[in-house]
């Protein structure tokens, strides 16, 4: 699999896929996309990188243990609902605010953080499985 062409193209493919995954995650509320799909794209990106350069490279690149990423995602998703208590609405009710940054109105919501949590869980959970399996292949 580690042909010259693949190894030259892999970093670009990976970078583009990661960018795409974030894009898909953020636009998910209004257009096709969201945390689940975005997360899967990112996993595929890491898998490509892993096949091209080996697992250690990927592990160094993502720095944190994938399971730690998944855990923080789960925590983020769970915590995003806690804010509801401050407004006396049921747990995980969506809360919205539209602050203006440099003249651009940005919609910020607890739902967004929840979706980022989903994204992180999918990325972390499945990447850790894929990487461990690839690692075995190397060893």
């Amino acid at each position: 699999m580690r042909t010259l062409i693949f190894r030259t193209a892999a970093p670009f493919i990976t970078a583009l896929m990661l960018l795409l995954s974030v894009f898909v995650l953020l636009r998910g509320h209004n257009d096709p996309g969201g945390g689940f799909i975005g997360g899967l794209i990112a996993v595929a990106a890491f898998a490509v990188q892993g096949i091209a350069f080996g697992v250690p490279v990927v592990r160094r690149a993502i720095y944190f243990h994938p399971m730690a990423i998944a855990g923080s995602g789960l925590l983020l998703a769970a915590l995003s609902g806690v804010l509801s208590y401050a407004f006396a609405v049921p747990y995980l009710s969506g809360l919205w605010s539209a602050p203006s940054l440099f003249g651009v109105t940005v919609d910020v919501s607890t739902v967004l953080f929840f979706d980022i949590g989903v994204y992180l869980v999918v990325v972390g959970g499945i990447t850790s499985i894929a990487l461990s399996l690839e690692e075995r292949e190397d060893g």
Partner: protein
Amino acid sequence: MQRGTFLTFIVLLLPLLGAALAPLLTRWAGGKAGWLLAIVPSLVFLHFLGMLGMVSEGQPITGGFDWIPSLGVRFSWLLDGLSLTFALLISGIGTLILIYAGGYLDGHPQQGRFFSFILLFMGAMLGLVVSDSFLMLFVFWELTSITSFLLIGFDHEREASRRAALQALLVTGLGGLSLLAGLLVVTQATGFNDLSTLLGSGDALRSSPLYMAAFVLVLGGAFTKSAQFPFHFWLPNAMEAPTPVSAYLHSATMVKAGVYLLMRLNPVMGDTAAWETVLPLFGGTTLLVGTLLAVRQTDLKLMLAYTTVASLGLLVMLTGFGSELAVEAAVLYLIAHSLFKGALFMVAGLLDHETGTRDVTALGGLRKAMPITFAAALLAALSMGGLPLFFGFLAKEEIYAALGFGNGWAALATLVAVAGNSLMFAVAFAVALKPFIGAERKTPKQAHEGPVSLWLGPLVLALAGLLAGLASGWVHAGFSSPMASAVAGRAVEVTISTVPHIGMALLLSAVTVGLGIAAYLSLGTLRGGMAALLTTIGWGPDRGFDQFVRGMLHASVGVTRIVQNGRMDTYMTVTFVCVAAVLLVPMILFGEFPAVPVFPDLQLHEWAIILMAVIGIGAVVYAKSRLVAIVSLGIQGLAVALLFMLFGAPDLSFTQFMIETLSVVILALVMTRLRLALSDHRPLGQKLFDMSVAGLCGAGFGLLLLKVTQQPFNDALSQFFNAYSRTIAHGRNVVNVIIVDFRGFDTLGEIAVVMITGLAILALIRIRAKPDAGKAKEIGR
């Protein structure tokens, strides 16, 4: 009222709070933390003491909060004479025990953990005796079993401790299940799920046809917890725990939980033939067996443990005897026993701590070295022996007055009580007198008086036994009478005092003391006789327990071998055969096949996509190499994703694309990991079988989907989501809005599952990474 309710709730939580703080406090203050932590139970004690006035006037205090309102479950308490006396014993003795444990385990590396466990137990036990609702009673009942397990196994590096802890947990845990079933039956029979309404319901339970079932099940809980014969064996084994635990859990408090339950239910369950036969029968047997086995022992703690078994038997016997006097006797004896047995256990621990041995035959002449201990021991033994002036004397007088010689049954009970009491008298003095008199013996440690933290507890409890006897009028008004009233279910007044009153009871007392002295003097001979007898019998419930556990293990290993044979293909076959059966059998049985669908007009590109899927499937079946098969499966999946796209489900199609891609990657990796042969070598028969299973599964799913789509479609939900997705959830993509907002809680659960699955898979791969471990081979096969 509201403030009082809240305060009681806080007080019930106090021990748990103390448990959380204990390790930190111990790290900071060492053994002295015992004194500080003792503040917790003493506050509890003072709070409940403040209720004494109201309760002793016959007014129970109740309170609580809704716990699970949808199920009608409350966190509620009922404080009448019975539960208040128990709460005071638990918190009062608990205070002394914490001080004692501070000295006893001083310098132990895990003392903080010990304090934590014992405070947890205290919280559980308090909750148990004040519980009003059944569920709360059961939860706290189980908590006492679990904390008891932790405490018995505190010295977890010793095998004997671990075994004893497990044994206690299994026996009392099984009893707990029996109690749960019993409480459910009671609820079924009467419709009540709390004690206060049940206690006010008169004959509702007794007259129910379910009475016998409830009776047997509740007894299963009470008898295991209170170590009644033949479940008594776990209690002496529990002496593996550090002595403060034995003094607290296994004499003064936890083992009385069963007796508490029987006393609590006496007004609604008692007064029946079954109750008045079974309880005295088991109680009396336990009394005799316990005292006889106590005589056999030479270890101070074991001697005391078996007399505790005996005392519990006596209490059960009295509770089941059915007369008001017997109830009064049980109440008096319960209070007296908590005081003197707690004190004697602490004395035994003190002797062990200061001399290095607790073998009664190796101790002697300690009266000069340990005078305060001697005083405490003697005072406690005098109460246990039932000599005048002491509270134990009152209890014993009342027992004899209650039993009497009214009929043959009562006379038999009296004889059993006299025999048991005289043997207990002998054991009491063997523990409290023998180590202190006679010639000095050489002990592993140079004996000297222990620190104040060690002798304070036994001395206070022993003195309390004397003072309670002297001020009996006050004790009866405050404790005995309200408690007896609660047990009897009607107002009862205890009047007995230490002023000697000539009569049958006093005569029996004298006989008991006489026999006791004789037994004490001939203890060596008795011990030899019992030892010989037990050797002849050779089998006991303790060994039976081991055999039972071994049998269970064998059986479960056998079952596991059949169900989990470790062969992946068997698992897959079983799973898919079951899936096919579930899908097809109901359809065939009820004749609910879907109607033959009208074949839709397809356009050329749609035909092309379907052709792609079919080619993919065909390639899977005909592929020679597994890798080709996996990739072909991916082609089929991508074709389906295209179909989704065409029919207006972009999100679904998007996800399907990603899933198919990753599936191919991961399946390929797994395949290389499993080192499967590259091609398929199944014999023809196997292939045909697998093919038919696959075909049936596919047919089942296809038919089911057809049937589902032929049902009338209820679009209420779709309409709701379409209407409100934009307006209340600020999103145009309905699918995503459902995932993250409308059904956010479901998603939270799902991502938790993703996370846990990932962890599990990671763990499985790691196991496989050690090829030398035999276990790993078995799992990965």
